[in-house]
């Protein structure tokens, strides 16, 4: 018992020690769309993205529930969950990575800073290294991050049946938009 208390106190102090550098959000936004030309727009939004950003080390983590992606069409949403992403088996997608040029961002000064992020994206049970460009905007002390990248479905074992191949493209454009707050 003593050990646990001691350990947790130690952990807490560790968190508090760098609390100033940790920013997080639970209402980040990720949306995606398929580039293929189709009458039915294949696009969805998720406004419940959790993300943590460490401004000192440049580490950044995202976690998102697949079921949180909402489509205009209920059927499309069901197929997305049932047939493509299999959210019953793989409920979450995560990204763990690092800003490769954290020194380029001055977190205490307003401005727009281009960044490159590299890390592991886990989607549909498959983990792949990806890298993407984006930007960090500092405005009145608030940090927001923006990024756009493409995901190749084949790389994540998501197969498109030939019947709908002309409706869903192999590359999906994903955009990320998060406004961070200080974690306390």
């Amino acid at each position, binding site marked *: 018992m003593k050990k646990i208390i001691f350990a947790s106190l130690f952990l807490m102090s560790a968190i508090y020690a760098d609390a100033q550098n940790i920013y*997080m959000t639970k209402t980040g936004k990720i949306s995606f769309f398929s580039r293929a030309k189709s009458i039915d727009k294949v696009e969805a939004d998720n406004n419940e993205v*959790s993300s*943590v950003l*460490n401004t000192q080390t440049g580490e950044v*983590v995202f976690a998102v529930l697949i079921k949180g992606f*909402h489509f*205009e069409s209920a*059927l499309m949403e*069901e197929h997305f969950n*049932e047939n493509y992403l299999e959210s019953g088996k793989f409920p979450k997608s995560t990204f763990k990575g690092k800003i490769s040029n954290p020194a380029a961002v001055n977190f205490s000064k307003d401005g727009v800073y281009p960044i490159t992020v590299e890390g592991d994206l886990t989607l549909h049970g498959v983990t792949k290294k990806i890298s993407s460009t984006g930007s960090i905007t500092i405005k009145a002390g608030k940090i927001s991050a923006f990024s756009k990248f493409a995901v190749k479905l084949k790389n994540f074992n998501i197969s498109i049946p030939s019947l709908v191949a002309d409706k869903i493209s192999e590359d999906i454009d994903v955009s990320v938009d998060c406004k961070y707050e200080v974690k306390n």
Partner: protein
Amino acid sequence: MKMLEADSKKEKKRDYATATFKTSRLINGHSIENAAAGVMDFKVSHRFGMINKGSYELFGLDQATMRMGLDYGISNRLMIGVGRSTFQKQYDAFGKLKILRQSKGGRWPSPISISAVSTVMLKTLKWENPKRQNFYTSRLSFAHQLIIARKFSEGLSLQLMPSFVHYNLASTVNEPNDIFALGAGGRIKLSKRLSFNVEYYHVLPLSFVEGESYMITGTKNSLAVGFDIETGGHVFQLHFTNSTGMTEKTFITETTGDFFKGDIHFGFNISRVFTIKNRKKKK
């Protein structure tokens, strides 16, 4: 960076079981599913003749009865629908409400889903005895069902359907006006887009009137087995059943075929959904 995981564990959000079945019908009767809010589901169902009629009738394919129906999801919990069957020239209308939804997490997780369906059926065949004084209300019958379902896993869903059918006018004095039945059914998913379904309704030996028969003379319990095949916006249901009708009163209480003597109808339901009202406004 473990914080994120710790945080997400703390506040577990309510997670509803979705897609317990592929469509709002199991085979003949209702499944736990509804059409989503703003979605219209157009259903065309056929039951061919009996397979044991031999090659002269091309194993039943020469005859067919049909039901065409439109279902609409008013909200994610309430669905209404109307239909017309060639069998007995029936019109039917129903309302279906999700009372409880199977969920994990949140304050009141539930292991099961419960829905209630009430159907009214109007038989418009010409009066059997036009000389007698006939009332419009005599054409009506009603069915009330509770559907209790659980999605046990991605591959297995089961449901129970306690049902009650009421005839305003029974065909003879000796036939019951009120019939109780218990249905059971389920599906096993064979692949992402294919499932195997079973549906069975057992008429219960219960009656309001003592000494009255509880089942219509000469009828059998309804059994159906089949497959759901999903292709994009369509769901095809192909099945074998001993029931001819596709409304609750006809398949629960008026099934005359004996499944195990080969009185089996091949049949199919085709479901096509249309999004009438978009769920969110685009900027």
